[in-house]
């Protein structure tokens, strides 16, 4: 038996793999109140106006995770190391998902959108950056029903004034860009680094879309609302580690 195994190894090759560290990232809708589903999302502004979103898409261009700052001791080790530690951005790196994903805002809040799985260098990760920018033709989930290509955000809905009166329809599209740098938060909402330091560890992280906060400071009927919303959306994003 042994000669057969040895011969097949030599001729065909024998290989095996031991898993390293990994972080699966998902995009999830997480309003402050109850989760929503169905054909519209209902959001109440601080002034009492009610915004009903009937269609909406947001392009998440990339997500990158950032290691916790080096300690003084580690900085010394890095300085002594003959191996360089360049931190240049590229299209695809072990710490960055560069494949754009278009999020359908009417997707059931209970369903998360999988962005990808990172296999980053072993380290503790404290922060992440999320980039919102116009979708290209290769974006995952690009809708056919609305002109999302070339846009970062596309929204359609109505605003019902707090004092009563007819609902005002709106349709917004923006090609502006925004980037948010956020800390990873634990289940309790406090900063919680993600330790990816032991081989075999597979963790999950989430980019949380807090759509109920988008209109806190932005009136969708006001001029320039589309670009202002992209900034407001970026500011409302959160990173969670499970």
């Amino acid at each position: 038996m042994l000669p057969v195994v040895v011969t097949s190894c030599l001729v065909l090759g024998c290989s095996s793999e031991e898993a390293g560290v990994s972080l699966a990232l998902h995009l999830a809708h997480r309003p402050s109140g109850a989760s929503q589903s169905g054909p519209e999302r209902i959001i109440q502004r601080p002034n009492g106006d009610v915004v009903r979103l009937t269609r909406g898409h947001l392009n998440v261009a990339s997500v990158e995770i950032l290691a916790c700052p080096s300690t003084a001791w580690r900085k010394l080790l890095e300085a002594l190391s003959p191996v360089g530690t360049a931190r240049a951005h590229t299209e695809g790196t072990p710490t960055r998902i560069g494949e754009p994903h278009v999020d359908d805002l009417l997707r059931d809040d209970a369903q998360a959108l999988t962005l990808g799985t990172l296999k980053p260098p072993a380290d503790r990760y404290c922060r992440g950056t999320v980039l919102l920018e116009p979708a290209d033709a290769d974006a995952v989930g690009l809708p056919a029903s609305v002109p999302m290509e070339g846009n970062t955000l596309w929204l359609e809905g109505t605003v019902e004034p707090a004092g009563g009166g007819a609902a005002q329809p709106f349709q917004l599209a923006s090609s502006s860009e925004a980037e948010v740098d956020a800390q990873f938060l634990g289940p309790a909402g406090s900063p919680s680094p993600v330790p990816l330091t032991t081989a075999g560890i597979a963790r999950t992280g989430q980019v949380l879309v807090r759509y109920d906060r988008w209109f806190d400071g932005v009136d969708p009927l006001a001029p320039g609302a589309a670009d202002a919303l992209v900034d407001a959306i970026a500011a409302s994003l959160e990173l969670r580690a499970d």
Partner: protein
Amino acid sequence: MRPSWLLPALALLALTVAGPALACATCGCGDPTLLSIGVEQPFGGRIRAFSEGQYRTESSGTPQTGGTALAEWALNLGGSYAFSSRWALSLTVPVLFRTLESADLSRDHSTNLGDVEALAKVVLWRDREFSARHLFSLLGGMRFPTAPLQRLPDGTVLGSDIQAGPGAWWFIGGVSYYARLGGPWSAYASVLAYLPTKGREGLEPAPTGRATVYGQLQPWPWLSVRLGTDMRLDGVWHENGAVSPDTGGFIAFLSPAVLLSPATDWVIQLAARIPVINALEGVHTEGTSASISLVVDL
């Protein structure tokens, strides 16, 4: 995966292949110098068998760009046969045990045959037929794509860094010069060029040049010490039409060795290669390698 059986295997192999010598090799060529495989003076019917265990390390890239570190144990088996005092043929069959560690702490292991290499040596000029002091030779051969394509059990093809060969045919050509300088001194120099065809899985290996120069001192018939340099000049590889990062460049090693002859026609060589000039492209380093080999004239 360190093959703990490597050294016993070397010894066993040598004992297996080494029958009683009919006549000593030194007597056959009039050169008592202890020499590695391929360096020896050919004479008609000379057969040498060798086995070598080698360990080396190599790393490329940075953690942020998916850098990897390779550790390789190699068991090289082979032999040479001299058809006459003018030309000889040698064959090297490598068996490789490789571990590739990535910055994400994942590890790939592979065990397989490497690329088999055949090299012919034609003596173009020697100062005298017997007990020659100067030999100038032409070298030519082929490295064959015998290393299998490595896949995981689910069929996924492993990355090019862990593959034992690119799947290319390499044409080899070069020259060598061997000199007995008088007394216990000798010297050897060689230059070889490797010219590859296209490989598999989109790999396009680049031509590489190798040079070796060393001097050797043999104070006693059973002991030699050697000091020299091995140099390598690599072209830049391509993968799927794009430049393969951290490939190409120049590296030079300081290469000390000790050669022992415990019995007639047996040579044990302990050697190291210490990188002293690293001008490899990108982030690419090679560590000190060590080897032990046994050469037996049959």
